[in-house]
């Protein structure tokens, strides 16, 4: 059985590996500081071979458990060679300073940009080439490693060079160097860890297609699943799921799947046409082009576009937050939305890639009101919009926190009695804003303020107003 990759384990092991490896070029740099520039251009890349080997080995130690098909020896070899190349590129500006110092600024800028990009992309590119054939997300891995090294080198330059001052004792110089190396290693490992978790997840999805097996699933883990046609050609990847609020406002059914094709287009397929494949991913039951044309209806909610990471307003307890994840239950007869996860641990889970031991606590969709324009419109177009079923005080809380245009639409659709009560409960300034009536005189607006004020049902604590 494959284990999910732990970001925390990656952070610790890879940072230690990098710190140990970095000691070799650091020591070589001190010893070779008196050598001529051309000699340094040889010594430092050779030292970089050891750094790359240590880094590659540490990464393989973590990856091995979660990615059995990865060839460890190829990975270590590629990382080692790439580190040597990166050191060579990195040493070029300082060792050839006399040569390029007289160049025009524009030439220097162009050369530095190319050199910097090449340096940052070297290790990721070499490792991508060492991955098993057909591994998805190679290009993204190059980006993540470049970002990781960018963060690492920035962290090092923020810590060590400002602290190194002329006349310091040798032990202090070494101590500062170690501190800089540690910060660099941690920053690099932290960023590449996020990429590694995603990389392994995508690789394992390709292997098992487990994201669409019966049971509860997180939307963030379902996105990116490959979709194949009947002749096993990849059509694209899952980019979004569409839920129909007309079926149920609490737990709407998934009706469609949005697929992003390789050429950048989007295709919307009925959910019933797709089945999990034994070889991984999702399979289209009919041949290419034979799937029925289908368009989601008016109260359709695109879970990635309208719900995931979107701001929401709650009536009880009153507040505003964001959706950390969406929980979807796959059953034999179909799929439905269980609810939304609003907890900060949902964010942490997406970062670390940790699979929850139990499904996270989900709040039904009807208990939150979406702030995104499409989400708000879909919820309001549902047969029995939950926001209109709220008691007056709950509706007043929601109206206070929503954008004015959304709040006015809710008021227009609300039942007369509840609307009157809700409006009466609003803070006078919110009432003026939302209803567009009878606020304080215009000339006083500037001085009296007219922004977020809580409803009269919840007077402010602390007496600031």
């Amino acid at each position, binding site marked *: 059985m494959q284990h999910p990759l732990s970001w925390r384990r990656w952070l610790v092991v890879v940072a230690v590996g990098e710190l140990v490896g970095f000691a070799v070029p650091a020591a070589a740099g001190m010893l070779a500081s008196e050598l001529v520039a051309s000699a340094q251009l040889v010594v430092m890349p050779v030292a970089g071979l050891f750094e790359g080997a240590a880094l590659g080995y540490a990464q393989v130690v973590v990856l091995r458990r979660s990615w059995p098909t990865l060839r460890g020896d190829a990975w270590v070899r590629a990382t080692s060679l790439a580190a040597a190349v990166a050191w060579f590129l990195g040493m070029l500006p300082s060792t050839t300073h006399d040569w390029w110092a007289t160049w025009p*600024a524009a030439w*220097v*800028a162009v050369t*530095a*940009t190319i050199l910097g990009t090449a340096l940052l992309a070297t290790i990721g590119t070499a490792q991508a080439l060492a991955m098993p054939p057909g591994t998805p997300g190679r290009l993204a891995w190059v980006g993540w490693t470049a*970002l990781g090294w960018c963060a690492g080198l920035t962290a090092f330059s*923020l810590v060590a*060079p*400002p602290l190194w*001052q002329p006349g310091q004792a040798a032990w202090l110089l070494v101590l500062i160097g170690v501190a800089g190396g540690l910060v660099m290693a941690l920053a690099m490992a932290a*960023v590449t860890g*996020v990429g590694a978790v995603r990389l392994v997840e995508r690789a394992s999805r390709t292997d098992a297609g487990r994201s669409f097996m019966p049971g509860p699933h997180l939307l*963030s883990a379902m996105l990116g699943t490959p979709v194949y046609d009947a002749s096993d050609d990849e059509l694209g990847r899952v980019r979004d799921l569409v839920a129909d609020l007309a079926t149920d406002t609490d737990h709407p059914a998934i009706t469609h799947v949005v697929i992003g094709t390789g050429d950048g287009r989007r295709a919307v397929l009925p959910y019933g046409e797709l089945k999990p494949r034994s070889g991984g991913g999702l399979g289209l039951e009919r041949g290419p082009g034979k799937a029925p044309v289908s368009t989601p209806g008016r109260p359709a909610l695109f879970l990635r576009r309208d719900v995931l*990471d*979107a*701001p*929401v307003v709650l009536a009880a307890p009153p507040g*505003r*937050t*964001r959706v950390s994840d969406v929980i979807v239950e796959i059953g034999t007869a179909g799929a439905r939305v269980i609810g939304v996860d609003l907890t*900060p641990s949902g*964010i942490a889970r*997406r*970062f670390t890639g940790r699979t929850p031991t139990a499904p996270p606590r989900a709040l039904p969709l009807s208990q939150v009101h979406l*702030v*995104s*324009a*499409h989400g708000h419109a879909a919820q309001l177009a549902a047969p029995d919009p939950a926001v209109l079923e709220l008691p007056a005080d709950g509706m007043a809380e929601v109206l206070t926190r929503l*954008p*004015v*245009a959304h709040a*006015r639409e809710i*008021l*227009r659709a609300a039942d*007369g009695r509840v*609307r*009157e009560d809700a409006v009466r409960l609003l803070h006078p300034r919110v009432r003026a*804003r*939302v*209803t*567009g*009536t*009878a*606020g304080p*005189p*215009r*000339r006083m*607006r*500037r*001085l*009296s*303020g*007219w*922004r*977020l004020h*809580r409803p009269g049902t919840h007077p*402010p*604590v*602390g007496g*600031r107003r």
Partner: protein
Amino acid sequence: MTEVVAPRRSGSRSTRRYLPLLAVLGPGLLAGLSDDDPAGITTYSVLGADHGYGLLWVLLLSTVALIVFHDLGARLGVVTGQGLIGLIRHRYGLGVASGALLALVIANLGTATAEFAGIAAGGELLGISRYLAVPVAAAAVSTLVLAGSFHRVEHVLMALASVFLAYVAAAVLAHPDWSAAFNGLVTPRMSFGHEETLIVAATVGTTLAPWGLSFIQSYAVDKKLTVKDLGYERTDVVMGALLTGIIGFFVVVACAATLHETHTSIVSAGDAAAALAPVAGDLAGLCFAVGLIGAALLAAAILPLSTAYSICDFTGSEAALDCTFSEARLFYLSNVVITTVAASVVLIPAVPLVPLLVSTQMLNAVLLIPLLVLMTRLSRDTSIVGDHAVSRPLAAVQALVVVAVVACVVLLLV
């Protein structure tokens, strides 16, 4: 039954016309003027002292860049009801947003340190110890944000911005050659030497700042501006950017009329204030020092606020100046923490501030490019802004500004 009706019309025609504009004023003015922080004043001072009136036209370019992107930020905030980092998370996911937030928080912390360093430098010019000026300033800006309601905070910050008039006074007292200044403003000329290229890049780079972009968007959201206010908000942005450019113009003129004539080189705004006194009189030097402190104080108030808005945008927590502490703990706590840390760093003896500030400027420059690219993409994304997507001509102008800023950033970094 309560009807949703149009706002009641009252008062004279001119009152009806201008009062909504007065009500909307704020985001553009504050975001623009806070760009004239000590780093900006230093850049303008060096521009004037080293190159005279010759490169004043660069201020026109940077003002255009400021108008384009501050207008875009305000528009995104008003239309989507979300701050920049929140919008990035919603559209591009957790990874991109958290990377942007992390870089923004680090850069803002460094920039806030620079603002408090500016307060320390300005205070010492007036004979006030940094150990008194910096804690008092930090306590003042924190108290303002913690204890003041939205309108009170806004009014105090706007009043603080009026201190920029000191630069106008400094320029007038320096008796500049106004015709040469006007000529330099409207006649682009440049020899493309290394130093000239660098100062041009620095001037454009210092005007557009990542924290300014995130601030204007979040502030427009906090102010609960609506789509109907967009026209007035654009006026606010243009006024803010023009005032920013005008202040920069007077700083350059003051230094060009005095320090450039006497071939005095400077490396900071504090140097400029000290060097102005013997050349243009004590009052001119005093005006410059007061302007420096005011600029630093304004930016020191806005930077932690911008950071707090961004953190809460990311998490989705309440972020409004009208909330109480118990309603928006994360918002107020992050504001106080940023202020305290930045002020503390300035007070630590023998801390090498210059490398720290240079690194911060580099980080700001690097962060600016992806933020500008993301903003231009968001502004054209109809799934986000609906009918308010930018027109093709405006998109072309945005692209030109992005290319110019990328060129400037690359020149600054190499």
